[in-house]
């Protein structure tokens, strides 16, 4: 078994309204920043022991399917690295 850190990034599907991101963008613009668009996402870093990177990615993906993401509104991706 090897120690891995799986990073799950959960974001709203394209086209789903993101009022929090819009509010954040407006706040940045009020501060004088010039930006075209802003998207927000949730990132989860999960430490685990796994047989290999694929196993770690599979397990993190299942966590996203079952809890971390809501398939009605979210897409997610998983990145796995060996923990240093």
């Amino acid at each position, binding site marked *: 078994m090897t120690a891995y850190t799986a990073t799950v990034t959960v974001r709203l599907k394209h086209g789903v309204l993101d009022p929090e991101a819009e509010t954040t963008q407006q706040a940045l613009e009020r501060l004088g920043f010039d930006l075209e668009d802003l998207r927000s996402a949730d990132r989860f870093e999960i430490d685990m022991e796994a047989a290999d990177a694929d196993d770690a990615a599979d397990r993190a993906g299942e966590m996203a399917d079952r*809890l971390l993401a809501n398939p009605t509104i979210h897409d997610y991706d998983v990145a796995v690295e060996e923990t240093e």
Partner: protein
Amino acid sequence: MTVAVVRFGGSNCDRDAVRALERLGVDADIAWHEDGLPADTQGVVLPGGFSYGDYLRAGAMAAHSPIMDEVRDLAENGVPVLGVCNGAQISCETSMTPGAFTTNASARFQCEHVHLRVENADTPWTAAFDEGDVVQIPIAHGEGRFEIADEAYETLEREDRILFRYCDEDGNVTDDANPNGSRGNVAGILGESEHVAVMMPHPERASLPELGLTDGQGVLTAFA
């Protein structure tokens, strides 16, 4: 009928629901989620509130509480289940009902009186009304915007599973009358069976005559 009102950590409309049901002559009691449902449960209310502090997403944590397996089993056996506000969010997170209730278009918490148009009066939850009736049941939520995939939305419409839409006082379903940006102004829907319903407005807050509004009684009468 004994109705179990499921209390999670952070539920806060549980006692209101019990009081409103008792006023209708319905035997109701609170069930702490860790204790499971009483054996004689013949109806379930998932009440409003902020279960688990709305961590992750509203309803996401409570949806995975073991008591929800019991609720789903009862629902599949024809026991009436009503999810209100946070209860609606929980129900959608468990997939007992389709879609999701997410952040209001305003990005604000909104506590206000709204009008609803009854879309289908041929259900236990709306039998007290006529189709097209305009009822007043208040909302209080930050995450009430109904989102659903196109195909699933078409299924809801085709199967006549939309209970209420936000409307103006004359029953017109307009963008201006949509408090939270919900798709199709949807305020309440049925699950796959008519025994399961969810809605963001609070019928238990519109059930006691001394508080003014009583249209919520029409919804809760399903348990009588």
